[in-house]
Each structure stands twice: as structure tokens, then as C-alpha cells.
């Protein structure tokens, strides 16, 4: 093999090696670091993913928000019409969090209560997280607000 071809082979080999290593790494990392979206109905039916953290979305049930008087601990119920789950959270809620509003919480289930480490509500009162809109549609509950689509 002449040196020119040898060099090119080396470069191509290195390139392939790098790319395949990166792809393998990316796929593994993706598999381990995604969080699944489930609905309150899934939880009610016992379809709870193992291990990892996941997200749950729905509407905050009216009059369900209970706040401790001396800390930032808060509990509220989230529903998609077909099921309801209690969410437990400590911290500051987003600006647009309120009863009747669609939210998404991230965390895990402990003793039937969803322990959230993050609560998201989008920055537009018209806006419904698409996952929540779809979950509501599946459970045949009319959305309390119009979704973003017009």
C-alpha cells in the first residue's frame, strides 16, 4: 500500500471509530436520561414506570392546593379527568401556576404520592403543554382553556 493511501485509510478509520463511539455513547446516554410522560390515569391504573424519574401532566384541581404556613411545602391534586394524583412539592411555583391551569411535574411516585422536584407551567396563559392537551383529549375532558392552536 502506498503511503498516501495508508494515511487516508488511517484518517477514515479514526473517523469511523470516533463516530461510532459517539453514536453508542449518545444512545446509551439518551436511554438513561430521558423522562417518560405519563398521565394521572396511567397512575390510577397502576401503569407506573420503574426506576427513573418521569413526568406527569394535567389540570390542577380546584380547591386542592394546600400550603404549609411556615415553609414552602405544598400539595395539590392533578387530574386528566380519568384519574387524579396528589403532587407533593417544596419550593417556589412558576408564575402561571394556579388552580384550573395545566401543569407538568417531574419527579417520582412514593407511597401513591407524586414527589415532584420540578413543576412547570408555561409562560402564556393560553398555552397548554401539548402532552397535557393530548392526555385530556384521551380522557375526553374538555380543556378549561383553549390550546395554543387557532
Amino acid at each position: 500500500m502506498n503511503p498516501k493511501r495508508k494515511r487516508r485509510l488511517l484518517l477514515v478509520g479514526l473517523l469511523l471509530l470516533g463516530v461510532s463511539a459517539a453514536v453508542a455513547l449518545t444512545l446509551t446516554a439518551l436511554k438513561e436520561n430521558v423522562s417518560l410522560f405519563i398521565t394521572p390515569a396511567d397512575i390510577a391504573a397502576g401503569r407506573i414506570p420503574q426506576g427513573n424519574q418521569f413526568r406527569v401532566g394535567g389540570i390542577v384541581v380546584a380547591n386542592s392546593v394546600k400550603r404549609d404556613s411556615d415553609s414552602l411545602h405544598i400539595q395539590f391534586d392533578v387530574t386528566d379527568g380519568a384519574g387524579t394524583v396528589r403532587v407533593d412539592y417544596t419550593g417556589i411555583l412558576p408564575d402561571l401556576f394556579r388552580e384550573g391551569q395545566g401543569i407538568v411535574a417531574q419527579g417520582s411516585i412514593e407511597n401513591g404520592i407524586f414527589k415532584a422536584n420540578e413543576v412547570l407551567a408555561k409562560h402564556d396563559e393560553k398555552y397548554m403543554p401539548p402532552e397535557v392537551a393530548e392526555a385530556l383529549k384521551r380522557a375526553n375532558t374538555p380543556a378549561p382553556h383553549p390550546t395554543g392552536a387557532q
Partner: protein
Amino acid sequence: MFPELGQWSLILSLLVAVSLAIVPLLGSYLRLEGWMRFADRATRVQFALVLLSFVILTLAFLQKDFSVAYVAQNSNTALPWYYRISAVWGAHEGSLLLWVLILCGWSIAVSLKGHELPLAFRARVLAIMGWVSTGFLAFITFTSNPFLRLFPAPAEGRDLNPLLQDPGLVIHPPMLYMGYVGFSVAFAFAVAGLLDGKLDSRWVRWARPWTNLAWAALTGGIVLGSWWAYYELGWGGWWFWDPVENASFMPWLAGTALLHSLAVTEKRKLFTSWTVLLAIITFSLSLLGTFLVRSGVLTSVHAFTSDPSRGLFILIFLAVMAGGALTLYAWRAPRLVVQQPFGLFSREVLILAGNIFLVLAMVVVLAGTLYPLVIDLLGASKISVGPPYFHTVFPLVLTPLVLLMPMGPFTRWKQDEPRRVVKLIWPGVLLTVVVLAVFALQMHQWSAYGLLAAAAGSWVLGGTLNYFWQRQRKARERVLGVGQMPSGVVGMILAHAGVGVFLLGVAMTESQSIEKDVRMAPGEQVELVGYQFRFLGAQHAEGPNYQAEQGTVEILKNDQVIATLHPQKRMYVAGGKPMTEAAIDAGFSRDLYVAMGEALGTDGAWAIRVYYKPYIRWIWLGGIFMLLGGIVAATDRRFRLAEQAVALREQKLALQEG
């Protein structure tokens, strides 16, 4: 009457764009000079028409013409005039108009500055940019008309999204679009080169400053967006790996690779087909970014609308542009390959390696951004990919890049000796140790991640300073002044140093920040790393178009008040939207950040976020260095001399032919 004029001018500009896309291109094949010259005229007319409709839309906002639906949806009589101007690009329709306006601006700049380019080549470049503007003008005309009327006209408009009522957001979209759209120049050059079947290194040199400027603008846009998110969203983060942020980061990564490979192609006539491919990829990613943001397929703070027809249009357009360019590439690229000898240890190989890692980083971001979409389309389940994924993979891809960065400039083209380079790099290692020690001593909590990131930053900064110093010394030996360094080199040094500064900022902020969410009654205080935050209560306050509860927080150090902050919780009257306005005591080596959550109980207590963020300013400071580096490099005299040389040769040719 006026809005209709704006719409007519938009439709006319679409017709002009179509002719610009076709006539000069045909002319270049049929060798019809008049048809080719048509490109310059069409570019001008197109720019004038789009500018006219942009001005008319702006006037509609200034005159509070709520009979225009877009104006009624995005402004309000109480909105201050400067936000009424920035509201023009505050939502979907207007921001697309801005996109096209900037595209027409770049086209006219190419037409004005491009007289040194051969006529046929210039005609093709402008025609290809015409294809892009055709697509976007058709998109606006058929799916997103900003001049749509409302009848009867409402007496009062809704409001501009309060998040966008901010000086940072006035300039963020134009900057970002300057970058996105600026890459269309490199794209048009690449495609024109493919059509020609050759890419002359003089034209490559000519394309370099444009790419530099586009890259600098994109850098600026991203930095502004990050800074805005930090103080405006009220969470105190500077990057969220939000899909829309990723959408701007992908063209940046590809564009960075493009900048470097353009240098190789110009200087060594190597990697031509790789450079062309990168130019196509970079602009396609800009289009993809526009698609992701505009189609509403992604859940994000930026997703204004979710109109499927719009998404479909951009997707088809993206497929046509990127697919067409890539097909042409597959067909023609083999012709661009020029054999040049180069050694295994040489600057071109180091740059190529850097390029590969930049592209890998881009692929990592792309995968994380599109994976949820793909899984959703397959109907498997709904998932989201969050920061943990990026935090796992990104450092691994960046490590080789960081290691290579200070070495590249020291290494010679063609062939070099590793031993020679190592000898030159030595002082940089010492500098690295010093810088790292300075930062490590300021770390108050142990963090392996923080130390590694700080080491990376120190290595890049130390290595770059070392290069600067050695280069200066060499310049002095040759009895040249300080100003004798070519500005291309100065720009490179600035940008590389910026990366170091940025990494140090990231290392300190990410590993040493302290964030506390606390319940505070008036008079209570909380301590963070030697700073006492004392809450004095909240009072009612009023702004031009909002009502607020304004808190007062005193910050004490060693019992001395060093700052009094006034965070606000605002309620915008028109839209009824709440907003958190954080208050920040900014500093060179640390920020103190206070934001209000919600009122609790009856004793005047509030939920309050108090953050200590060391060196967070360095993140944006590094970005500003990179931006300046891009601009300085674009002013390199060598680029202009090259233009003159091309012009001279053209004249000679014309004389010979005549």
C-alpha cells in the same frame, strides 16, 4: 389603506424574488449578460419592497392601528413606544418579516460588495439567495400575513407578551437572525461553487469575512438570549437545553467548524468538499431551527403557535433546500477534490480533528433535540430529554476539542514536529496551573466536575495567552509594532480566549452556586457565603402597563449594607399575566440574585429565591470576546487585498477579451 400597501409590497417582493431565483441562474448558463446583471437590480428592488412593508408594519404599531390583527394581538395603548417597535418582531408573522428583511439586507450587501466576483458567479450566488427569500416570502404571504385586518377594529389591543418587554429582547431576535440568515451567504457560495464545479480559493477568501460576521452575530444573539433568560425568567439559570436554545446552538457549532475549515480551504486548498458540506449543513440547521421554533412541534417557552400548516410548509422548504443542495453535493463534490500533500501532524489535521468534534457535538445536540419528536412520531411514548443527557455526553465530546485548541495556532501547515510544538506550549502549561490555582482557591465546595471544567478553561485561556505572548515576542524581534499582528490572528486570539473565559465562568457558576428558596417574613434574614439577605417587606408599586408588589431586600456583608435590591412580582394589566422581575447585584466575581415567589400567609411573608452565583458574568463576557473576535477577524486586510487582486485580474481579463 397603509396596511394593504404593505401587503401589496410584500406580494410584489415575492414576484421579484421568484424572478431573482430564476432569471440570473438561466442567464449564467445561457451566457446572457443582461440576465445575469438582472440579479443586482432584482436584489435592490426586493430589498426596497420588503423594507417598505416592514416600515408600514412598524408604523401600524406606532399608530396603534388595532384594525391590523397582528398589531391588536401584540400591542396595547399602554405599551411604551420602544416596545411597540420591538413588538413588530414579538410574534410569529413579524419576526418572519424581520427574517426576510435581514436576508434581503445580506443579499444587497453581497451585490454591492461583490463587484470583484466574476459576473456569472455573483449572479448564481444572488439567485440562490433569491431561492431562500422566495421560500420565506411565500411562507409569509400564504400562511402568516402580518397585515391581516380585523373588522370591526377593537378599541384596545391585547398585550405584547410581558416576557418580551425587555431591552435585552429588543435586540436578541435581530442579532440571532443576522446570524442565522448570514450563513445563507456561505450556503449560496457553496452551492454556486457546486454548480460551477470548482471553488476558487479567491472566492473562498471572499466568503470568509461574511461567515465571520454571521458567526459573530449568532454568537451575540445566543449570548443575549442566555443573559435575558437569566434575569428575566426568574430561575437564575443561563442555559436550559431548551429545544429552542438548542436550535440556535446547532448552527453555531456547525458554523464554528465552517469558520475553521474555510481557513484551511483558503490557505491550503484542502478539504474543499468538506467545507462546502459544512456550509450546506450550517444553513440547513438555521432553517431547521426556524422550523422547530415556528412549527410548535416542540414544547418550549418560545413556541408561540402550533399551526400544523406552517410547520409543514417550512418542513417542505427545508427538505427542498437542504435536500437539493445535498443532492447537488453528492453529484458534484467529487470534482472539488484537489490532491494536496499534508502530514499527519500539521495544522490542517488538527483543524480537521477539531471540526470532527464540533460536528459530533452538533450531532449530540441534534439527537437530544429530535429524539423526543421521533419517539412521539413512532407513537411509542412521550418523553423529554433534559439537562442530564447533555451534561453526560457534552463534556466528553468537548474534552478533545479543549485539548486541541491551544495547540492549533502553534502548529505549522503541511507538516510539523510534535516535539517543536510541545516546547512552545510549555509556558502555557505553567500559565494553566496558575490560573487554575487562582480559581480553585476560590471554590468553597468540593466538586470534581467544577475542577475539571476550571482546568479546561485555564488550559484554553493559558494556552491562548501564551500564544499571544510568543507571537508578540516574535513580532518585536522583527522590529514590528504591537499593531502589526494581522487582525485575523488577533480575532482568533480573542475568540479562543473567550472560550477560556466562558469555560471558567461555567465551571464556577455550575459548581459553586448556592440557590435557596426560603420563606421570609419582614425582618427575617438568611445567610449565603458570608452575605446576609434581609427581607424588609413588600409594597405596592405601579409601572406604565403593570401593577406590582415590590419587595425590599438588603444585603449585608460584615454588618455593612452593600446593596439594596427591589425584586418585583408584576401583574400586567392588559393580559392579566403575572411576571417575576428578579433583582440582581451584579459583580465581576459574583452575582447576588433575589426573586419573589408568592405571598404566603397573613404576616407579609413571601416565598423568596436567593442565589449566589460566582463568576456568572464570565459566561457572557467570554461570549462577548468570541463575538469581538469574529468581527475583528472579518476586518483582516488580507481579505480586502484579495478582493483587489481579484478585481485587478478581472479588469485585465476584460481588457484582453475586449
